[in-house]
């Protein structure tokens, strides 16, 4: 194969004509501006572009589009490496580095190609068989031999490799809206855009190629196209080139990937590399064209074999004649025009037509132009030359009385195939629109939904240009829509197509590929059938047909026809697997967009975030929140800091940001009734100025959330929720009020972000606050009893104050509107200096709550009942509440359910960590009795402690020897099960 440049036909279509350089495996080559990697490599006579997936067979350019199955390359270096690029679709830019794939040491001499000799073992399903020891692998069963081979095979098989470095580029997301979206800019697409625009609609025309024009670009005469492009400048038409519509989704939503800038340019221009458009349209026209198919014959993957239409594209778009001795094998009319153009460009052309008759028009043109024609003929086998991987010769098959038979050979340096056309119906298939088989046109087709989604042009199975254009006009013609018969009919050839999927002669041996990119052969399909995989969906997965990056755009139908043949059924009955997005490979970076690294999820900062950072806080993530974790002093680590903080708070005074607690205002005449229904404990008689701890169950009786609710006025409550459940409690309350109990007059408002809070805990808490009020009486036990709530001025800052304790110490929570939070905290902290005091973070907070046996999300995990956590007394017997009925299910009352307990190590010097299971001694291999939910070092007790659940609780484990087993860390510890209230169980400290 010796492709050469030819002079472009004289026309007024301006093409840039200057040289650019690029690098192929490090070697500098020259191409023309406008070349794709494929045309650039062909122009430099690079016939072998890569090695195949499994057998390492040499592969060259097989097409001129997204269906490419052979010429996959890697482009770019370092972090800019991008593997598995389809060479015919990527434009060459100055200095582009292109590399071959899956070959070592080089594409011309590849050690992996030895696998081709072992192909008997690599047929469909070889992995399954290998590990199961099924023939021909029976000798490998139970041996380590195959483990060794597997390693080797995994390494050898494959496509390109990713760089494993972070993607340095920027990607953006856009919401794009248009009236009419036209996908594809060939004759039908352009006409659809122009017709739609005439009505005044906004039109978006997208084209996956970097140039608009579709099949116009592959034609020698471009006068019509030039006229059309001038009309496309209408201001209600937007054109996006280099933009792939990769998926069609519900409600006329299309995913578009727009390739904005070349990698080298975007660094200086600060442009995104790609944009991901979520495009919504009123109407979508799929003018996505059709893809020319090949067929299965022996060695149909040799370099030098490509589709007829691709040779036409290379000739008329890139001015590249792909061979001198060209054989065209076809079964339809479409190849003849190309044959003439190739002949006129100076090649010797021979046509093998599988049909035994063709129309007189075609016949005369061919004969008068000295093109050799063999009717009733096809290729049985392709052969490469001595010392050359490229095609040199073909064995011909001829239709005889008993079917195909051998009929001599022909020499050539290029073989072009056209075994029919497959309309690109992928997007219609994404939405599940019906896909039907046309016997007459030997293709699958779809009609969209005929309301908002239409197919036009060759995507609708129309093969002549005028018909394609008319089909686009028809979509917008109301009369034509009303009268279906006026629609353009599929087809458009003089002589009907003759189905051609495989030529197989008993006398010839070798591999005939169905899916070259995944190295699936015709015999793999037959093997799958023979082994019982008769559904196409099973066959696809067993053979991996159509599961490579090209998704079998050229070969799937061959596989289906071979399966149909084996099943002795028509293709229409075998069916087709549903296409899945994306239509072509898309970059994950584009889907991620800006949502990466620190933008992966939003950060919720408390109003005290900056204040805490200025006071040396180390922050941690709690859901979306960023919270102070600990406040190290003088080089303390986490452990030293939290122990000091918890110790100080219990000894004297600690201050903590608790702004993240969920806060919901519950207001209205029925607010009391509402709270009484959602909490398990009674709220009907909660006095104004008091808070109450409450538990909310789900409908199924499991614990949903807990928190305190403060009665601020007759019909005005402030409910607090756990930090984690703030949003779901809010949603739940709204659901109850809007869906279940619409008659209740209650309004709920989330005020989590509006109010900031800090907890002041420790024996000196009241002393500190007394220093902050005008009259010391205001902070007395009588003025603010346990669970009391009131408005108060602290050094002239108006606050709500509640005497609530999570730490188990005498404690208060002070709330102010968020903007006042730093002033409040600053004032309190300044006054705290007079005491032995500290700021404490989430870690010390956790330590103190574990010591007290207070439950949080770790315990209330959706599987625990109110009794499991020892709060059964919170469930009122005298009123109804949500979850009451199902809470009393018999199984939930079982005394053997896991119940909340405290855990001490027997040897108090032992440390242990979270994640362990609780077993009875001697039964560590059986089902565990329980698990650990939270672990900490307890400064108050002077040893490590934990909370956990164990079957039957404390009661049931009194006489048992329990072991904490941590298999992962090989840690086994004798433990003692104790009450979860491990510190100050009587609560004397709480009351100061």
């Amino acid at each position, binding site marked *: 194969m010796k492709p050469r440049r030819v002079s472009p036909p004289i026309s007024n279509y301006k093409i840039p004509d200057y040289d650019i350089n690029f690098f192929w495996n490090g070697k500098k080559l020259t191409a023309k501006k406008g070349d794709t990697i494929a045309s650039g490599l062909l122009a430099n006579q690079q016939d072998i572009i890569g090695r195949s997936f499994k057998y390492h067979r040499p592969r060259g350019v097989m097409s001129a589009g997204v269906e490419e199955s052979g010429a996959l390359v890697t482009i770019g270096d370092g972090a800019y490496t991008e593997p598995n690029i389809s060479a015919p679709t990527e434009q060459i830019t100055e200095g582009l580095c292109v590399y071959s794939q899956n070959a070592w040491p080089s594409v011309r001499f590849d050690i992996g190609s030895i696998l081709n000799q072992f192909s008997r073992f690599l047929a469909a399903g070889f992995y399954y068989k290998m590990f199961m020891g099924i023939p021909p692998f029976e000798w490998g069963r139970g041996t380590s031999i195959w483990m060794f081979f597997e390693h080797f095979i995994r390494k050898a098989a494959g496509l390109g490799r990713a760089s494993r470095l972070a993607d340095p580029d920027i990607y953006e997301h856009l919401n794009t809206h248009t009236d009419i979206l036209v996908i594809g800019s060939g004759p039908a697409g352009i006409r659809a855009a122009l017709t739609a625009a005439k009505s005044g609609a906004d039109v978006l025309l997208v084209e996956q190629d970097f140039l608009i024009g579709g099949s116009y670009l592959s034609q020698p005469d471009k006068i019509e196209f030039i006229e059309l492009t001038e009309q496309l400048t209408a201001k209600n038409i937007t054109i996006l080139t280099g933009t792939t519509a990769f998926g069609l989704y*519900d409600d006329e939503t299309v995913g578009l990937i727009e390739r904005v800038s070349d990698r080298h340019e975007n660094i200086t221009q600060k442009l995104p590399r790609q944009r991901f458009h979520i495009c919504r349209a009123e109407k979508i026209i799929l003018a996505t064209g059709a893809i020319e198919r090949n067929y299965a014959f022996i060695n149909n993957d040799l370099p030098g074999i490509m589709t007829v239409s691709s040779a036409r594209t290379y000739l008329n778009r890139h001015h590249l004649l792909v061979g001198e001795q060209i054989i065209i094998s076809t079964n339809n009319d479409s190849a003849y025009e190309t044959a003439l153009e190739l002949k006129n460009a100076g090649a010797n052309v021979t046509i093998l037509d599988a049909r035994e008759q063709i129309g007189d028009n075609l016949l005369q043109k061919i004969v008068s132009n000295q093109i050799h024609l063999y009717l009733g003929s096809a290729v049985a086998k392709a052969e490469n030359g001595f010392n050359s991987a490229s095609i040199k010769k073909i064995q011909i098959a001829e239709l005889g009385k008993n079917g195909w038979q051998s009929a001599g050979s022909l020499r050539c340096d290029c073989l072009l195939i056209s075994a029919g056309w497959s309309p690109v119906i992928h997007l219609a298939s994404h939405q599940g629109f019906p896909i039907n088989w046309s016997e007459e046109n030997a293709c699958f087709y779809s009609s969209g939904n005929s309301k908002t989604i239409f197919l036009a042009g060759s995507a609708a199975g129309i093969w002549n240009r005028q018909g394609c254009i008319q089909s686009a006009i028809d979509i917008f013609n109301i009369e034509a829509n009303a009268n279906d018969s006026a629609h353009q009919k599929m087809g458009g050839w003089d002589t009907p197509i003759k189905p051609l999927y495989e030529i197989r002669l008993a006398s010839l041996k070798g591999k005939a590929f169905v899916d070259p990119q995944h190295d699936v052969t015709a015999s793999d399909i037959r093997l799958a059938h023979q082994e019982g995989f008769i559904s196409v969906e099973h066959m696809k997965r067993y053979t991996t047909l159509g599961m490579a990056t090209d998704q079998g755009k050229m070969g799937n139908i061959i596989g289906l026809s071979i399966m149909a043949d084996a099943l002795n059924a028509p293709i229409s009955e075998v069916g087709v697997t549903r296409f899945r997005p994306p239509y072509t490979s898309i970059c994950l970076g584009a889907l991620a967009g800006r949502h990466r690294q620190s933008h992966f999820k939003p950060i919720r900062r408390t109003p005290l975030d900056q204040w805490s950072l200025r006071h040396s806080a180390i922050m941690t993530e709690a859901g979306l929140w960023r919270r102070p974790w600990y406040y190290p002093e003088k080089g303390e680590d986490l452990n030293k800091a939290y122990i000091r903080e918890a110790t100080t708070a219990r000894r004297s005074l600690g201050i903590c940001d608790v702004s993240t607690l969920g806060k919901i205002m519950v207001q209205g005449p029925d607010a009391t009734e509402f709270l009484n*229904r959602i909490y398990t404990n009674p709220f009907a008689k909660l006095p104004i100025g008091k808070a109450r701890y409450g538990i909310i169950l789900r409908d199924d009786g499991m614990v949903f959330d807990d928190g305190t609710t403060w009665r601020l006025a007759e019909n005005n409550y402030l409910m607090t929720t756990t930090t984690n459940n703030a949003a779901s409690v809010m949603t739940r309350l709204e*659901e109850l009020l809007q869906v279940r109990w*619409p008659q209740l007059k209650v309004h709920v408002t989330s005020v989590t972000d509006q109010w900031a809070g800090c907890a002041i805990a420790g024996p000196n808490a009241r002393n500190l606050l007394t220093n902050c009020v005008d009259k010391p009486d205001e902070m007395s036990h009588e003025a603010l009893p346990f669970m009391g709530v009131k408005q108060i001025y602290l050094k002239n800052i108006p606050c709500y104050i509640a005497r609530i304790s999570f730490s188990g110490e005498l404690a208060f929570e002070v709330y102010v509107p968020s903007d006042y939070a730093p002033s409040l905290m600053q004032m309190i902290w300044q006054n705290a200096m007079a005491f032995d005091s500290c700021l404490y973070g989430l870690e010390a907070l956790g330590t103190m709550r574990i010591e007290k046996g207070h439950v949080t999300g770790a315990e209330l995990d959706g599987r625990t009942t109110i009794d499991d956590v020892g709060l059964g007394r919170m469930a009122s017997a005298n009123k109804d*509440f949500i979850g009451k009925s*199902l809470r009393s299910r018999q199984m939930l009352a079982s005394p053997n359910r896991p119940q909340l307990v405290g855990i001490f190590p027997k040897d108090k010097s032992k440390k242990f960590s979270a994640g362990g299971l609780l077993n009875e001694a001697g039964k560590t291999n059986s089902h565990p009795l329980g698990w650990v939910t939270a672990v900490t070092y307890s400064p108050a007790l002077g040893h490590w402690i934990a909370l956990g659940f164990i079957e039957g609780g404390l009661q049931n484990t009194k006489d048992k020897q329990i072991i904490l087993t941590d298999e992962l860390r090989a840690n086994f510890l004798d433990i003692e099960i104790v009450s979860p209230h491990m510190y100050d169980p009587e609560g004397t400290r709480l009351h100061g």
Partner: protein
Amino acid sequence: MIQIICPFCGKRDHSEFSYGGDGEITYPALDANEESWHDAVFLRENIYGRQIETWQHIHGCRSWLLVDRDTKTHEIFSVKLAHLDWHILLEKNR
């Protein structure tokens, strides 16, 4: 991507909404027996076709909605505010 016409906010992407559940369930009174609560909470039809669902316009007006939707085609036939008094009021003042 499904779009839902919120009676209050207009046509919005489904990413603004969160799915609730079967909208045709009548929850029993709080003091109803275990069996009727069991049926309401745990028994669900797995409908392949039209069903009434509850959705919340969680990133919008936070209304709970009754959506009449085909689970097979995703076609939406009607959207109402679940709070029917509010719905009537909204329609009246349109």
